[in-house]
């Protein structure tokens, strides 16, 4: 390729409080190519692209478009330069229709909208690229794959030439990923420039013309897609450290034991946009990890919340430790030895403005209180926390500072230490490694497998099929609030799970 690049980023630097997200990053993007940005979570890929799209402002650095320096101060500016971006968490408005969402994005519309003509344009473009999306449907009714297509449509209709995709495959089933790459190929043919962020090696090798690998805010290297191999990319991504594989036990020793948790025909209300559970039967025995696969929003969150007692059953019965617990409060469930490891500790588990030790005490305030609640036994809190941190081989943070002052990784470790402190019998792990760097993710996985070996039952909800196959003793697949398949990792392939996840007709394997 002897052409000059369409877009040049030079020495882009951006820091957030406590993190240098981009450290003098250089990048060239050419027209008619798919340029993959590869790197583990937190390597700075998204930040770089959000700067390019004007969503963040860089501390320093220069952006050139066709050799001319440009200033991009807001998404509005970026759109003027025909740059478009599909965010990782879709920036769509669920309550509005597809057409309204797209209209919102289009520049240069008259003050009074002509909806018929907009819908016609949507249909034309979706025809050309072979998407089928109903412009009148409210977005909350669409599947993740369809929402992805809406995003692409938005960019095409807004006449963007440079298209940025931030982890577009995160919640797609394998065959949907193939469909998306077909779209990429068509766009490339028409001369669009595509930047594609991912941390999945296979996808990069499948579709990228050039690959830039980022590591800790810097560019580790740029190579041609045709020359890249899995091992060369891994070396660029991680340097030396490599994801450790956790041995799964061949046989399930749990077979003979009495169930730890049992759900019989459980239904829940469907709240707003999410699916409620429908007739869910699930058994978890001590010493096994039951993995739950599914595209997010298909009832996994509700499943976890039902087990925790947060969501009430409208129908069905729940048993815990052999006792019926359908009407227990969350406090009763937690005190009986149920731990909860969330995807997003700051949102669902941590209290950033409370001190580290106060956070620890939250696991069971009753147990740590004295004189019936008039004061707290901080001595006991500290020693339990210390013991748990040591057992997990984590660093000991100061106990009196607000938890929010610690780094993200340390907050996650603190929550893990808190949840594991009292040797839980049942662990609900909710996307436990999402957003973690490789080391933290590995330690979280190790904790889960160790607890399993020590006899705990684990409900592992995850979107990462690799993680599910690696850790689980049994797998269930959820779709639209139902369990649509149950198997073991040995007996089912990832593709089969993918079909089940998306409700495709794929054979409904039931092998128990």
């Amino acid at each position, binding site marked *: 390729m002897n052409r000059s690049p369409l877009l040049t980023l030079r020495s882009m630097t951006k820091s957030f409080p406590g993190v240098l997200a981009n450290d003098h990053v250089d990048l060239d993007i050419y027209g008619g190519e798919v340029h993959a940005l590869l790197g583990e979570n937190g390597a700075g890929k998204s930040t770089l692209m959000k700067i390019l799209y004007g969503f963040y402002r860089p501390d320093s650095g220069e952006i050139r478009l066709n050799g001319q320096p440009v200033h991009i101060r807001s998404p509005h500016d970026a759109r003027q330069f025909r740059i478009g971006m599909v965010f990782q968490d879709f920036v769509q408005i669920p309550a509005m229709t597809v057409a309204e969402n797209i209209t919102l994005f289009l520049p240069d519309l008259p003050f009074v909208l002509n909806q018929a003509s907009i819908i016609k344009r949507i249909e034309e473009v979706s025809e050309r690229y072979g998407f089928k999306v109903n412009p009148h449907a409210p977005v909350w009714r669409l599947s993740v794959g369809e929402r992805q297509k809406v995003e692409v449509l938005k960019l095409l209709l807004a006449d963007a030439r440079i298209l940025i995709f931030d982890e577009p495959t995160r919640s797609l089933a394998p065959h949907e990923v193939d469909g998306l790459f077909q779209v990429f190929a068509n766009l490339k043919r028409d001369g669009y420039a595509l930047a594609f962020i991912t941390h999945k090696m296979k996808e990069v090798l499948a579709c990228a013309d050039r690959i830039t690998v980022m590591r800790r805010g810097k560019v580790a290297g740029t190579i041609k897609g045709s020359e890249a191999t899995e091992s060369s990319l891994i070396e660029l991504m991680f340097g030396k450290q490599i994801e450790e594989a956790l041995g799964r036990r061949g046989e399930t020793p749990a077979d003979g034991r009495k169930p730890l948790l049992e759900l019989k025909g459980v239904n829940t209300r469907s709240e707003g946009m999410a699916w409620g559970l429908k007739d869910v039967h699930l058994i978890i025995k001590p010493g096994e990890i039951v993995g739950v696969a599914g595209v997010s929003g298909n009832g996994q969150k509700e499943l976890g919340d039902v087990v*925790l007692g*947060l969501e009430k059953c409208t129908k069905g019965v729940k048993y815990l430790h052999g006792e019926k617990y359908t009407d227990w*409060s*969350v*406090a*009763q*469930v*937690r*005190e009986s030895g149920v731990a*909860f490891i*969330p995807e997003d500790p*700051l*949102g*669902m*588990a*941590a*209290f*950033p*403005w*409370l001190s580290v030790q*106060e956070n620890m*005490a*939250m*696991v*069971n*305030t*009753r147990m*740590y*209180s004295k004189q019936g*609640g*008039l*004061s*707290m036994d901080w001595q006991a809190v500290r020693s339990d926390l210390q013991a748990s941190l040591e057992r997990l081989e984590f660093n000991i943070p100061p106990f009196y500072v607000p938890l929010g002052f610690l780094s993200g990784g340390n907050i996650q470790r603190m929550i893990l230490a808190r949840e594991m402190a009292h040797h839980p019998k049942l662990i609900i792990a909710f996307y436990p490694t999402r957003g973690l760097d490789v080391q933290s993710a590995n330690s979280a996985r190790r904790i889960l497998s160790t607890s399993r070996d020590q006899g705990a039952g684990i409900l592992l909800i995850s979107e990462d099929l690799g993680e599910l196959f690696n850790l689980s003793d049994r797998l269930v697949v959820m779709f639209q609030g139902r369990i649509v398949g149950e198997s073991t990792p040995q007996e089912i392939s990832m593709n089969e799970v993918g079909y089940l996840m998306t409700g495709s007709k794929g054979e409904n394997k039931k092998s128990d």
Partner: protein
Amino acid sequence: MAFFRNRRMAGLIRFVGLFALALMIFAAVLLVFGKNPIRAYWDIFSATLGSSYGISEVLVRMIPLILTALAVALPSRIWLINVGGEGQLFIGALFATWGAVNFTNLPAWLLLPSIGILGFLGGGLWGAISGFMRVRGWASETISTLLMNYVAILLVNFFVFGPWKDPESANYPQSAPFPDAAILPSFFGTRIHLGAVLAIVGLILFYFVLSRTRWGLEMRAIGVNQEAARRNGISTSRYIILLMLIGGGMAGLAGMGEVSAIHGQLRPSLSPGLGYTGFLISWMAGGHPIGIVAAAFLLSVITSGGDILQMTHRIPAAGVHILMALILFVVLARRGGKPR
């Protein structure tokens, strides 16, 4: 510890600065209306802090203000916005009056605690209704407490114009006077009454419960991250109802104190917006007990000043609402609405 003292000093300086800014804007407003702000401020100052009687009256006004501020501050720990202090105060007064005029032959040692409990219960139930509506997802406590203020005031009017009207009081709408046994004792020959002790105890309990006890820890946890609190087994609904009950009870106690010690009978003019002023105090203080005392002192001076401005400068008493709003404006604008 020096660190904390410095931070507190900085907070105090900022507070004084913001207050001065609000005073300056209000002075400008007075100028626009052709009044002399310096004279106005001087008259307020000399009438309230210029004599021992003035000071004692400021303290008297502080008693209900501290209680109604607590009525807001306590629920605000878990992000409940209780704007119903005014209504809760009226219902507290209503309940206390019922006790006082119906059990006239009880001795003081029995009657006083009884009307105290009645006042607390009245305000508490009134607040708990809003808490209940919030828990059931029927209405936010903000809008329901606001609407219920009007209902409460009309209810008191209904009783004093109707069934409870004192037949001996000619045409004045007011209840029969309280028996002596139902009048809260006053101290030092001033109008400072036993309610002051209730306010102080309330403040101390507020501080102690929040910082030391399990319930305080759980409340702070809900305040920081409600989702995480629920997942840790803390029942937020229970706290919502409980805190609205206790908060409303505090305002009810304020109403009981006013009706028993100040008026000696139930009148529709029971409160010149004490509940709303309490809301302002709690927000100015950021819910801190010492801050509540300081802000209550300040607003006690300002609201007393409103009456003085009306008498001496022919400025409507509601005019000081502008000053109160300005103070809240600068506090809100400065802090971006953070709870602490």
